[in-house]
């Protein structure tokens, strides 16, 4: 096993493990911190794929900004185990059954696909900023511009809903 492979397996293990902890952690703050850890492992995976730009942007945007706001909101809300509404046993039972069925179906479906050949990156420079910029402004120009309008309208909406009216 090469260093890259063992790094991959390590990161993948940490990613899966910490994302499980995100779901199972009792304390929402811990959940968020595990989620940040997950983002870091994902960044590691990106860097293994030589996609440094995406990796770093993942840290800046998700770990550095969005998760800070998550943490911020959760700290303000002061969520804890006592204030969390408990589900009835029936609900839990139904949840387990549906989730289990979903898991079985997904495993069955995806298990039967043939394992792919080892992925070899064709162009090593694919993930670098310059190439990404070219793709973004050529092939994906339209989605890129649409996203800007989407964000603008979402921002209008957020301001609208949060604004306090002075009569």
């Amino acid at each position, binding site marked *: 096993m090469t260093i890259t492979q063992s790094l991959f397996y390590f990161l993948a293990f940490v990613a899966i493990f910490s994302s499980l902890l995100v779901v199972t952690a009792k304390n929402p703050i811990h959940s968020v911190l595990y989620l940040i850890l997950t983002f870091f492992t994902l960044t590691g995976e990106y860097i293994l794929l030589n996609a440094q730009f995406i990796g770093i942007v993942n840290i800046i945007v998700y770990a550095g900004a969005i998760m800070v706001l998550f943490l911020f909101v959760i700290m303000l809300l002061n969520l804890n185990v006592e204030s969390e509404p408990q589900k009835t046993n029936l609900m839990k039972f139904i949840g387990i059954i549906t989730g289990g069925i979903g898991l079985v*179906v*997904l495993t*069955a*479906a*995806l298990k*039967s*696909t*043939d394992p792919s050949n080892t992925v070899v990156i064709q162009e090593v420079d694919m993930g670098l900023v*310059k190439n990404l*910029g*070219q793709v973004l*402004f*050529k*092939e*994906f*120009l*339209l*989605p890129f511009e*649409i*996203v800007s*309008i*989407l964000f*603008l*309208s*979402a921002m*209008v*909406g957020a301001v*609208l*809903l949060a*604004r306090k*009216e002075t*009569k």
Partner: protein
Amino acid sequence: MKNFVEIIQSSINDTLGSWIYLLPEISLAFIFILMIIADLFWAKRIKNLVAIIAVSGLFIVFLEVIDQFILIPPQGVVLFSAMIKLSTAAIWYKVLITISGLLVLLFSLRDFQLRNTEKGGSEYYSLVLVVTLGLNFMVMAQNLLMIYLSIEFVSVCSYILAAYLTGNKRSEESGMKYALFGAVASAVMLYGMSLLYGFTGTLDITNQAFYNGLASINLMSASVALLLTLAGLFFKISAFPMQVWVPDVYEGAPTPITAFLSVAPKVAGIALLITFIRAVNSGGSPSGSVFLASTENLLAALAIITMTIGNFSALWQTNVKRLMAYSAIGHSGFILMGVAAYSMTGQKAILFFLFVYALANIGAFLVIGYFSNVFHSEELEDYKGMGMKYPLVSVAMVIFLVSLTGLPPTAGFVGKFFIFSAAIEAYMLGGNVLLLIMVVFGVVNTVVSLFYYFKIPLNLYLRKAKTEISLDKGNLLFSVIIIVLALFTLFLGVFPNKLIGLINF
């Protein structure tokens, strides 16, 4: 550096060549920004400025959309490196979306809840325009990324619109529920899309590689990926597994928004669904497709369940908006019948049905809005005896309901007739028994729907009002639009060829 300059140049040229086809969308984006700026600087001085810009702007966009019929070649144009495709069918859907947008804007002008909200109306109008923009992209999208983006676009703005009446508990609940369900649906869809991309290696669903990739892996895996992706679309058209959000959202949202949500996203969702189904089945000859039988079965089964759930649940409703919500679910089932029939006649039938449905449904909601302006209630109880007091509007309501039920002489009858005949035709060709069962269920459901639709005229005409309540004056603008819509519904019922003859793709 030189290299990049060339790339930028070529991409600019490409964009300049394509922008003429995107004129309505670009106009919408500009009007949106113009409205924000106008609201900031001049809204205090000129009353209703933003609303005026919105209505006139959308009207211009409507003309631009109509103009596109002449602009494009018959086989359509593929734009922006196969991100979107502008075809005649897409333009028809855009026409429908723009018309319903216009009607909803006019509706909102006089809705008492919106007029009295403390937020003011300016953001409301701009958001309606943005939703229209998103819907326009939805009907044209043919790339997984564009599909996802446009659906999110519509969803995000719809959440805000549903929760627009802040301070009103029901509206807030409606927005919150919509957002939560929508987030789950889009997450599921995104997962499905990532699987599809993994299987096929392309985002362009019309690409031959997309079909080949799906056909080469085993059916089970492909179906799971497709199902997960379809979940997001089913959410938009409120079809069976993703329909639970509908009643609460429709009830709590401001009435104009309910009218809009019950028509426009459904139109766009159906258009997208047809694109998607066609892409999945497009390899080789249609009969040789791997997925044809399974998609047909799936859609037929979903159509049956959706319409049955919708129509039967509607029987017990006492709130008119809730009732209309379940009726909307039922109608999604009927439209899915047309999609299941998967043929050219089926698509024309769907388009005609959507037209008719849009007219009648927006009309019915306009009447609900009219009544709620008059006596501030949406409960069936309070409709008692109103038929005599507001004769014109009530007669129009009856026409809309008859059309929604699908009885002659209204357009709804013709619409349903086309859908049924498309399904029968598909059965004749393919011999899939499920399609026949679907038609039988369709007929049964039509009969069931009669029961609950009938409750409204029953209360309007045959029951006496319990007490005299103070009534506000009805609104002239509303009455005019309602009557025009009712006349159209009758007209299309008698002369359906006037529209069918135009629909040609």
